[in-house]
């Protein structure tokens, strides 16, 4: 039925939409580039977010009072402001003050500032879940404070909060799409370009969703495999600590 056939025209137009993925796939190299950038962002933000978040959690649980105050302040500010504003601040805000960060560097810093705060909260909960008796036992065996932290606190704490951490890092990857607003050519940003090149919005969104889904599955798989290596107890018993 051709458009313009009288009554019901509006409905029929919607039904008549013909999908054309070919146009999108012609630009698949663009989308793959974007997906790669998203992965790179997620990778660096996960690694540094985990390391720095853990350090923050240590400082916030056993540091001197002034350090605790600073860290808790940072965690609250970073968790209660949008990532978009944080990245604007770091890239455009600092630029007007004369500090020009390359966009990718600013974007990674913004992500790290954001995810470190969340990681710190999750790790703090894990650290506080280690019972006092465990620490006493380790202390009485003669372990140093550092040895106790590495062997008796950190490992079980991580094992307990690992599922939350993994979800956190997947959310971070999905959330990194807002960085397209500051000009990062990540997956969402490149999909916008594909849209304007092809005028195929619907198809672009479908393909984009598929890409994000694939990235999520990939990340979940990596975290699952890493968990098997890191936590032999769980691998053997299949129970949560």
């Amino acid at each position: 039925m051709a458009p313009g056939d009288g009554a019901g025209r509006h409905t029929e137009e919607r039904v008549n939409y013909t999908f054309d993925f070919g146009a999108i796939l012609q630009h698949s190299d663009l989308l793959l580039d974007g997906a790669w950038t998203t992965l790179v962002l997620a990778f660096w933000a996960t690694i540094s977010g985990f390391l720095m978040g853990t350090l923050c959690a240590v400082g916030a649980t056993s540091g001197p009072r002034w350090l605790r105050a600073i860290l808790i302040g940072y965690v609250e500010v970073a968790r209660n402001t949008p990532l978009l504003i944080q990245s604007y601040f770091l890239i455009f805000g600092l630029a007007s003050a004369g500090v020009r960060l390359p966009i990718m560097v600013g974007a990674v810093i913004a992500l790290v500032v954001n995810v470190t705060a969340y990681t710190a909260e999750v790790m703090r909960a894990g650290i506080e879940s280690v019972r006092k008796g465990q620490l006493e036992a380790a202390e009485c065996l003669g372990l140093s404070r550092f040895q106790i932290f590495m062997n008796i606190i950190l490992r079980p704490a991580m094992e307990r909060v690992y599922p939350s951490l993994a979800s956190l890092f997947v959310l971070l990857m999905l959330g990194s799409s807002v960085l397209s607003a500051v000009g990062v050519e990540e997956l969402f940003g490149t999909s916008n370009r594909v849209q304007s090149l092809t005028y195929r919005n619907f198809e672009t969104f479908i393909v984009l969703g598929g890409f994000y889904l694939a990235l999520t599955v990939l990340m979940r798989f990596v975290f699952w495999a890493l968990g098997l290596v890191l936590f032999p107890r769980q691998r053997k018993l299949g129970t949560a600590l």
Partner: protein
Amino acid sequence: MSPIVEMRELRKSFGAVDVLKGVTFDVERGQVAAIIGQSGSGKSTALRCIDHLEKINGGELTVCGHALHTDKPDLAALRKDVGIVFQGYNLFPHLTVGQNITMAPKLVHRRSRKEADEIGREMIAKVGLADRWDYYPEQLSGGQQQRVAIARSLAMQPKLMLFDEVTSALDPKLTGEVLRVMEKLASEGMTMILVTHEMQFARNVADKVIYMRDGRVHEMGGPEILSQPSTPELADFVNEEF
């Protein structure tokens, strides 16, 4: 030779509450001392002071030659000489039995993996759980976990072993298997101080019985004081416990 533990007028308070009000006793090398008394009498606190889990507020305490009443006691040296077993076992849940036992010898005594394993296997056999080496704590019964905790302390080859109500969380059958391990240790000449409610065990195994009441040593002597107490308070206590 000087005693392994010399406690003189030891005082300890938690805030405004005086828990130890001047406790004095000695434990000689090779002796088994049982500290008994009601809940709240300060017996666990006295034991915890010996391993410096509680900082003392007054008096003098020397353990294996290390003075603990000084400003900066040498805790690293103290902990190499003293082992302690707790009521709640406190095994490390994320490590296997073998890893629980060999961790401290590796990290603190800097032993090679092979050496640590040898010592560990010897100790796990001593407590009768050689076949549980690769198990995780949650796969063991309470009595077995407590025996692993004993093996873990023994692997550090301490000169003095402290036992803080180690059978209080166990049913009578499991209590028996833990007490048998402790009896064996005593017969091998280990110096032991135990806080316990097991009067039968204290009478059979202890060389010295210390009855604490209200933050002080109320009566002290050989195990015969449990049959012929000289104070009415100990007589009452013994009657209730047996």
